[in-house]
């Protein structure tokens, strides 16, 4: 992708989340969010290596994945605000967004479990197409046995999946080096899966690694794992702003802030192009915020919509009179 393209995607993700954080503060987004600020290059670089008909399984820190895959910011912000006009009619919120129109098949809140779902999707689509599936997860996920089971299944059956580990060195407050014996890549290699550790702060580098893995999967070469070293600049979740949790020292945060992927990418784009993009994005997001805030709440009478196919009725929680 050209430098302006990456800049645009990453700037959109960054500003989308900053605006979302404002909506958390104003109470419009009741759940709070898990910001991916600082990790934008991974989403941008990986999704740039995908075709529109390729598929993504996201996780709790997934706003970047959806935006990079092409979700509409307005409908997405409406989703975070749990509005009926959201992508998922307000049934996903920030934690479980899916957008099947752009190939995002959802985000399991069960850390690590999206990988096995992704393997199943890949197995199915791989039988009659050359589509590829990407599964995003964090460093915390690699200690979840179910994820390792999915490595085994994917390797055995050579399914076209790319496992993308966004290693931001913490799972909530848990430092990765106290949680992971061995290495992330070693856990994939043990199953015969090719695995690489790659800089996650430069979208060009991310793209190149992703393109190779995606190409391999598309050609029938089976799964790969890419571990991107990256960092989240915000807390695990916006609730962290209300707590005093000291688990990262300031020097470490500063070191990573110096490697801000958005600043890096900005430096590759001519100022006037950047300004135009920034203005476009701001206009887009102004409209998105307006749409999200002004959209109607879901109707309580619709609480059972989508629960069961065909609208199977369920008994209320109160005994009939």
């Amino acid at each position, binding site marked *: 992708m050209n430098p302006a393209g990456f800049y645009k995607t990453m700037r959109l993700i960054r500003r989308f989340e900053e605006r979302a954080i404002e909506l958390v503060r104003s109470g419009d987004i009741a759940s709070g969010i898990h910001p991916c600020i600082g990790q934008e290059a991974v989403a941008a670089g990986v999704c740039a290596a995908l075709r529109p008909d390729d*598929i993504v*399984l996201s996780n709790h820190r997934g706003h970047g994945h959806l935006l990079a895959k092409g979700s509409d910011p307005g409908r997405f912000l409406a989703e975070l605000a749990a509005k009926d006009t*959201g*992508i*998922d*009619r*307000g*049934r*996903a919120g920030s934690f*479980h967004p*899916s*957008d*099947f129109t752009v190939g995002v*098949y*959802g985000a*399991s809140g*069960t850390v690590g*479990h999206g990988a*096995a*779902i*992704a*393997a*199943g*999707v*890949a*197995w*199915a*689509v791989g*039988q009659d197409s050359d589509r590829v599936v990407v599964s995003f997860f964090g460093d915390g996920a690699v200690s979840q*046995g*179910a994820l390792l*089971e*999915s490595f*085994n*299944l994917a390797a*055995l059956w050579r399914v076209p999946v790319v496992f993308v580990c966004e290693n931001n060195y913490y799972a909530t407050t848990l430092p990765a080096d106290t949680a992971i014996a061995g290495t992330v890549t070693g856990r994939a290699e043990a199953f015969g899966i090719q695995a690489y550790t790659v800089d996650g702060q430069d979208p060009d580098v991310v793209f190149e690694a992703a393109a190779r893995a995606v190409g391999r999967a598309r050609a029938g070469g089976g799964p790969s794992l890419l571990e991107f070293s990256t960092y989240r600049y915000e807390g695990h979740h916006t609730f962290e702003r209300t707590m005093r949790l000291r688990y990262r020292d300031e020097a470490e945060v500063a070191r990573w802030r110096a490697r801000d992927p958005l600043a890096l990418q900005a430096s590759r784009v001519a100022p006037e192009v950047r300004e135009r993009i920034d203005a476009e994005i701001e206009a887009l997001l102004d409209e998105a915020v307006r749409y999200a805030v002004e959209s109607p709440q879901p109707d309580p009478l619709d609480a059972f*919509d*989508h*629960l*069961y*196919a*065909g609208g*199977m009725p*369920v*008994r209320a929680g109160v*005994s*009939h009179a």
Partner: protein
Amino acid sequence: MPKLSYAKALNRALGDEMARDESVFVMGEDIHLALTQTTTGLLDRFGPRRVVQTPLSEQGFTNFATGAAMAGRRPVVEYQIPFLLLLVVEQIANQANKFALMSGGQTRVPVTYLLPGTGWRPGWGAQHSDQPYSVFAHLGVKTVIPATPTDAYGLLTTAIRDDDPVMVFAPMPALGIREDVDYADLAPVPLGVGLVRRSGTDVTVVAVGHLVHDALAVAEELAGEVSVEVFDPRSLYPFDWAGLAASLERTGRLVVFDDSNRSCGLAGEILATAAEEMRLDAPPKRVTRPDGAVVIGCAPALDLAVQPSRAQLTTAIRAVLKS
């Protein structure tokens, strides 16, 4: 008419659905050699892409099926032993069963979870003898438990065609049951529709799964003394409350005969709903396993002491008539 066994009925339903719809496939452990008999002959007919034998990774392959379902397939996932379901409660109830909802209706997850052989297996130990269907009925996962070969065929067929996750419990003691059938009569059985297996006027016995046959035997034995109606709910969630209410309108008395643990089990749900909403001329009763998970599965003497029996049902029927 040919005799069809319950196990063979499951096998036939699976084969018929796989032939009818290319998106149907089956996955599980030891299914190439059809250890449970559910998949007998299917590998030869449909090949290893549709009869997918898995490693011992129940969580992994349960989620895998969810993914395949979201990509348009209709997986049938077999678990060899009932407790394996307890390993995947989260994957079924909190993931597969919620993705359609969480997507706001963009996707559906049509997976069938098939349990050929739930409940007590003599000698198989405390970990292998559970009947966890009430757990799934509680968590809102569609759940059926056929009692006869015809219903095994019909309910498995419906489960596979249903657009949501559906659990199919096939109780161990039912697997060998045989029935005279005309194959042309085998057809899908709708969810949430129970069946009066025997009409009666004095008391309604709701019997679940294999216990339907025991209830019918007891009803026959007591025929001179009391007129017992035997109601087989067939599907536990959704439940045929209207069918039960109609039966209780006739009899006014209720005994539930259920192989799950007593506390928070299906029988309790049936008693509760009847007490809330239906005609009851006397306090209802249930005959279940005791509280707690106590089928030890080693010494038959111990095990039989903690499973619902015909004798207990007989006593309960008599007691409910006296009050």
